[in-house]
């Protein structure tokens, strides 16, 4: 009897429901699902637990992991090879190459993708924008102008929560806009020192300083969903946040296009954040059978559709019909295909897709330090370069 113990941090609301779908399918196929949720700190607590489990030789079957972390764990020699399933299911044909790349370890499949989140979204309250005669901005200058207008009207221009990862989310969106896809790639994927120290980076921090001015006083420690609620309620104009924010709008019965607007942040490119399950080495036939079944189901069309409808993201496989999805999702899917073609489909650094923990953490430290102080942009760039250097 297939068995699977799944470690994840999707513990509430839409996410939990989405996982429940998978569990049900797993059970329908005769498997026993053991749920091991560990919430908190954007997965920090779960990672603590994972490390302990692995070290004690008692790894869970599948773990919510993503990006380079998968490779990192692979290098520790604790991941399983699920190429058999992947080949039987023809994953290579249905997943975009850059996403598939994250799922492979030394050429073997070791993880199964669940979805694709777009990170560089900008969300807006349609009514507020209309009332102030503002269009969705196409450049950062336009954004600044719109924000100033909102501020003058007594509306908080940017809804934001002062948590390090949210600062980083805004930062990478700004960086993508100002540095361009190429520059982003160099800076946050290749960690090219030149780019990190360039004038472009100074400009990025300048813009961040502006963004800080658009945020209300109470932003510190605010959860992102509360920021979303501010946009929803018309207290704020914009929010820069991944597409999970859409789930909040939808949950509140808002309609995309009418009540709220979605657009990619100014600039070209697509920052993706792919959720996936890494498969760990487990002993015992039933556990291995469970692992194979789990992998098969995760990439299966049915789950990809149902899960992403719940979660607000788009399926990782490209052959899922999007009829049931909303307009924002359609836009996302189209942009993904396009940018995959022109090479601007980029991993999100803020969500751990581009860099290993030590480096992305080092960058975030600088970003959040800058955002929460009156450090100059030049200082910030210098610090950024040092921090990255130091973390290598």
């Amino acid at each position, binding site marked *: 009897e297939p068995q699977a113990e799944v470690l994840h941090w*999707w513990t*509430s609301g839409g996410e939990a429901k989405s996982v429940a779908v998978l569990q049900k399918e797993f059970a329908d196929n005769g498997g026993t699902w053991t749920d091991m949720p560990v*919430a908190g*700190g954007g997965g920090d607590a779960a990672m603590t637990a994972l490390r*302990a489990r692995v070290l004690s030789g008692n790894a869970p079957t599948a773990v919510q992991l993503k990006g380079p972390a998968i490779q990192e764990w692979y290098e520790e020699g604790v991941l399983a090879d699920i190429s058999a399933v992947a080949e039987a299911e023809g994953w290579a044909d249905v997943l975009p190459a850059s996403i598939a790349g994250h799922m492979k370890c030394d050429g073997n499949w070791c993880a199964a993708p669940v979805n694709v989140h777009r990170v560089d979204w900008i969300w807006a309250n349609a009514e507020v924008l209309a009332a102030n005669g503002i269009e969705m901005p196409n450049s950062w200058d336009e954004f600044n102008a719109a924000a100033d207008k909102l501020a003058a009207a007594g509306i908080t221009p940017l809804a934001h929560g002062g948590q390090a990862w949210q600062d980083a989310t805004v930062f990478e969106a700004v960086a993508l806009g100002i540095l361009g896809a190429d520059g982003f790639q160099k800076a946050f994927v290749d960690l090219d020192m030149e780019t990190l120290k360039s004038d472009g980076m100074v400009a990025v921090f300048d813009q961040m300083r502006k963004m800080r001015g658009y945020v209300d006083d109470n932003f510190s420690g605010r959860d992102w969903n509360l920021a979303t609620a501010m946009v929803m309620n018309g207290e704020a104009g914009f929010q820069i946040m991944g597409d999970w924010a859409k789930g909040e709008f939808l*949950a509140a019965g808002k309609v995309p296009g009418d009540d709220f607007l979605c657009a990619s942040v100014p600039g070209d490119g697509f920052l993706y954040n792919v959720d996936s399950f890494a498969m760990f080495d487990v002993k015992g036939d039933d556990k291995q059978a469970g692992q194979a079944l789990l992998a098969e189901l995760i990439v299966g069309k049915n789950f990809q559709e149902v899960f992403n409808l719940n979660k607000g993201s788009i399926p990782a496989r490209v052959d899922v019909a999007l009829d049931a999805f909303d307009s924002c999702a359609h836009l996302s899917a189209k942009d993904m295909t396009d940018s995959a073609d022109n090479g601007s489909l980029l991993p999100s650094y803020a969500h751990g897709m581009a860099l290993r923990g030590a480096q992305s953490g080092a960058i975030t430290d600088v970003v959040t330090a800058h955002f929460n102080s009156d450090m100059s942009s030049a200082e910030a760039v210098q610090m950024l370069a040092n921090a990255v250097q130091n973390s290598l």
Partner: protein
Amino acid sequence: MTDLVINPTQSRPWGKILLRALLFALLGLFALFYLMPLFVMVTTSLKSLEEIRTGSLIAFPREITFEAWRTAWSGACTGIQCEGLRPYFWNSVVLAIPAVLISTVVGALNGYVIAQWRFRGANLIFSLLLFGCFIPFQVVLLPMARMLGLMGLAGTIPGLIFVHVIYGIGFTTLFFRNYYVTIPQELVKAAKVDGAGFFRIFWSIFLPLSLPIIVVTVIWQFTQIWNDFLFGVSFSQAGTQPVTVALNNIVNSTTGVKEYNVDMAAAIIAALPTLLVYVVAGKYFIRGLTAGSVKG
């Protein structure tokens, strides 16, 4: 005992009354400061979600509802299971009780040996034990995980008990040792001459004397173990997670609607046993501190 402010023969009653009023005002003010978080938690847990969104935090509920408590106990979702805190609560109970008992007994025996059967090196061992109290627990997580794996206790409740006992011994030994050094050594001598052995002396003479310090130790250990999150999250697996981990799962979800009333109700439920212990045994706690462990 110490009887200072009210010096009975000093008259001037109005001055005295003024002083007393000031005293009570101060005491009351501090009581408010200490009660505020509890007040916020309790009132929030009794409000509906609607009222929380619209009203002020620091206000009495307009309408009291126990719905959030029911949900927190038996309906809240932690991941895909929606059984509330209940199963995890019992995990904590079966975990905390043996861990507290074992670490107390071991601490009592250790303290007894160190204080009353001094041998060369006993003080060194005591120092080593004591230093163990101060080690940051994050440091031991990884090697401990490895050890638990090697011992075959990974992810089990006995494993968690083991961890809590190991890192509790330092404090329990400290408490008992400081208590037992105040007992004259002649007692052991008398019993030795009477023909009693090591365990007999402990059982018949020292244990019956130890109630105050047992109370202090049990309260301390119970609070530590019940409230522990780090070990709980690291060394448990599905089915053995303690209540703090479940609470964290309820309270710390990063996505979805936040049900603050349920969060608060869950927080209070998770804290009830320790609160109860403090309220019921707090008196003995102070008494126990006076009885021995306070000594420098």
